[in-house]
């Protein structure tokens, strides 16, 4: 036993500090090692095209939308909630931004409008979950359909082409130093959210609510207000993801991002979040998102068909849940 331990006699269920640290480090290191491993794998199989600067940029660009959505959904998962309506929210946001741009609203206002629509979607989810006391999975299953319906109604079930503005260039190279604006936005949100979770009272309350809501109540945390804030924040992040999706598509598309919720949740779980709440890491989530996109990119370069790619992604999601389970196995 290490000398920093205060354990003086064998105690059931005790863990020595060294072992404890290894477990914590592994949680973050896991997705990083996985990422390096798949890069080596695809690099070996397609040395000419995979390990190139262009491909790396391509992967990161594809990770932006799902990565930002995943950053927003990670606090929701840490607080033991879930949001499967984020794909539909992104669709509503792209349509809303397209309509605002076409109504000659200044691009910046249109973008904020999109973020506001996302936050409103989150507010609706959060209100049903906290005020009506409904199960988050069921609520967002409902809005998964309902928000998609809103997008369909707003767009009359077809893509809304938007007038060209600088909003269309957020994901394009050459507009910002080194990488497109979207990537900078991802990095900024990554840093801010990670700091928020670790260094603010609100962040610690999110972990407490997810770990044990009763304890949070006992300790005087306004649980409902905090949960509402978490869903609104998640919705706003989804709104930002939606604005960048719009920029990517340069149109409002009511059918976009059907798989985004599951990919975002899988990214969070691969990155160390627990679906039972109380655990999760923003850095891990973004690594998880990049990991999934790297595998997609590799599969494309190996000329796997769309079907095979979806099978691989699906298996990765199952693998991620298995990881979640293994991490939470404790000595009985």
């Amino acid at each position, binding site marked *: *036993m290490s000398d*920093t*331990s*205060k*354990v*003086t*006699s*064998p*105690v*059931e*269920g*005790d*863990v*020595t*500090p060294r*072992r*404890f640290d290894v477990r*914590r480090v592994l949680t973050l290191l896991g997705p990083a090692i996985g990422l390096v491993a798949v890069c080596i794998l695809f690099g070996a199989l397609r040395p000419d095209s995979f390990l190139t600067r262009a491909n790396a940029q391509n992967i990161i660009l594809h990770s932006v939308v799902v990565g930002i959505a995943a950053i927003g959904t990670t606090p929701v998962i840490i607080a033991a909630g879930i949001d499967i309506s984020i794909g539909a929210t992104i669709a509503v946001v792209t349509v809303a931004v397209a309509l605002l741009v076409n109504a000659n609203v200044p691009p910046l206002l249109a973008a904020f409008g999109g973020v506001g629509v996302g936050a409103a979607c989150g507010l609706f989810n959060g209100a049903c979950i906290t005020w009506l006391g409904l199960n988050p999975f069921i609520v967002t299953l409902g809005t998964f359909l309902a928000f998609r319906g809103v997008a369909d109604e707003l767009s009359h079930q077809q893509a809304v082409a938007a007038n060209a503005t600088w909003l269309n260039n957020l994901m394009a190279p050459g507009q910002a130093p080194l990488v497109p604006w979207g990537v900078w936005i991802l990095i900024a949100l990554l840093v801010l959210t990670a700091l928020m979770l*670790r*260094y*603010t*009272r609100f*962040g*610690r*309350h999110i*972990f*407490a609510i997810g*770990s*044990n809501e*009763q*304890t*949070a*109540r*006992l*300790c*005087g*945390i*306004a649980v409902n207000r905090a949960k509402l804030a978490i869903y609104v924040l998640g919705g706003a992040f989804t709104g930002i993801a939606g604005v960048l999706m719009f920029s990517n598509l340069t149109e409002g598309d009511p059918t976009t991002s059907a798989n985004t919720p599951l990919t975002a949740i899988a990214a969070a779980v691969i990155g160390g979040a627990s679906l039972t709440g*109380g*655990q999760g890491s923003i850095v891990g989530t973004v690594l998880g998102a990049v990991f999934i996109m790297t595998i997609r990119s590799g599969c494309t370069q190996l000329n796997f068909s769309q079907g095979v790619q979806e099978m691989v992604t699906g298996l990765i999601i199952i693998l991620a849940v298995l990881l979640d389970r293994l991490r939470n196995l*404790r*000595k*009985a």
Partner: protein
Amino acid sequence: MTCPPLATPNTREPSACRLRMEAIRKRFDATQALAGVSLSVNAGAVLALVGENGAGKSTLMKVLSGAYTPDEGHMWLEGQPYHPSDPMAARRAGVAMIYQELSLAKHLSVMENILLGIEPRLGPFMDWRRTRQIAADAMAQIGRTDIPLTTPVGRLSIAEQQLVEIARATATGSKVVVLDEPTSSLTAPDIVGLFKLIGRLRDQGQAIIYISHFLEEVREISNRFVVLRDGQSVGGGSTAEATTDHIISLMVGRKVEDLYPRSQHQPGETLLAAQNLAGENKPTRASLELHRGEVLGIAGLVGAGRTELLRAIFGLDAVTSGHVKVGLVSGGSSRPAIRWSQGMGMLSEDRKAEGLAVGLSIADNITLSRLGWLVRPSRTQAIARQWITKLNIRCAGPAQAVVDLSGGNQQKVAIARLLYHGVDVLLLDEPTRGIDVGSKAEIYKLIDELAKKGKAVIVVSSYLPELMGICDRIAVMCRGQLHPARAVSSLTEESIMLEATGAAA
């Protein structure tokens, strides 16, 4: 009475000895959980297994029930070598475990639970006639034919659920029944009923292993006892011949001079007053006054509304009428956040479900009620380190998850939260439930010191010797009503029980 030592492991045992475990050792990584434990129990006898939390009782019982394979050692059941490969094998061999946390399917009926996993069948279908028959026999054997077999188990009281679990053990033809802390969530009359049943099973020739923290119970129910400490059996013998002090000194490895330290408390001004307080269901009417420097005990049966009273005062449950006055502020319903800010803290009776976020670290749990807008992990860890030292919390460090700690150390973390918050009024609901004697003594000492420093403490407990030992005044609660508090010197355990059961006017 005891089984004689054996020359070789294969020798047949005398038939009276139902179960024997010899020199059982089990190691987990760096921790030697069991370092050579031996015990034996005869047919028709009750063996009490006592020891502090972490002494190895649970590990030993997991070895017995087949959940763990021992590294070394031998076991015999009715003279035959017994080495269960898994819990199902142990159950088939006749070893039944009744755990503290009951393992019943709450939505299924009594009879379905009794025959869960061994359902009689007619071809591919359930044989409901035989299911009912076997279940009825099992309930008759434990003397409770009054419980309807078709009732969903979730609708029964905890005590009745426990009976169903015991009926399940007898229905499967158990030879050894292990009861792990069976009384921790029972009321006094239910405990009497349980003890009658244990006597009945004993007389039917079952061998019973009874695990408990309550030495009075051990004294009442067991023929023999074995004490575990640090993974070893350190003593045992006939219960009738051992004094309680002797058993305690074996458990803690030192002499316990006085479990309940008490110094002179100086009651000061009133810090908390409740007037005709009523909640949605309970309490129906409760008035109390709590003074600075005082420990007020609330006695009563489980279900009398003691926990609900604390919850109503603390703002966790709604108040429907009456007032709570904290300091100079008076009002009805409140919120925990307001109570904390008024200098009041509450310790939940249920550490795992409410008291602690067990997945989070010690530091997170201690500081949770008192965080600034910005949180520096290095600072919360430094704070936690102070409390770890002050309260002698045995752990690997402030970043360790609370789930990894023993019950007593978890409780100290929960109490540390109140102390770090610096509250003046402490509402402690069952502060020593399910923790070892050593930690209990430390918590009693702590409560005494807090009162001496001018804090006001309310202790709810179902354990009367403890209330009598640490409180200045005790109020009895009965069916939602709180009776007036009286000085502990004017009370006896008998008078409190009479009042609690509603026998005294």
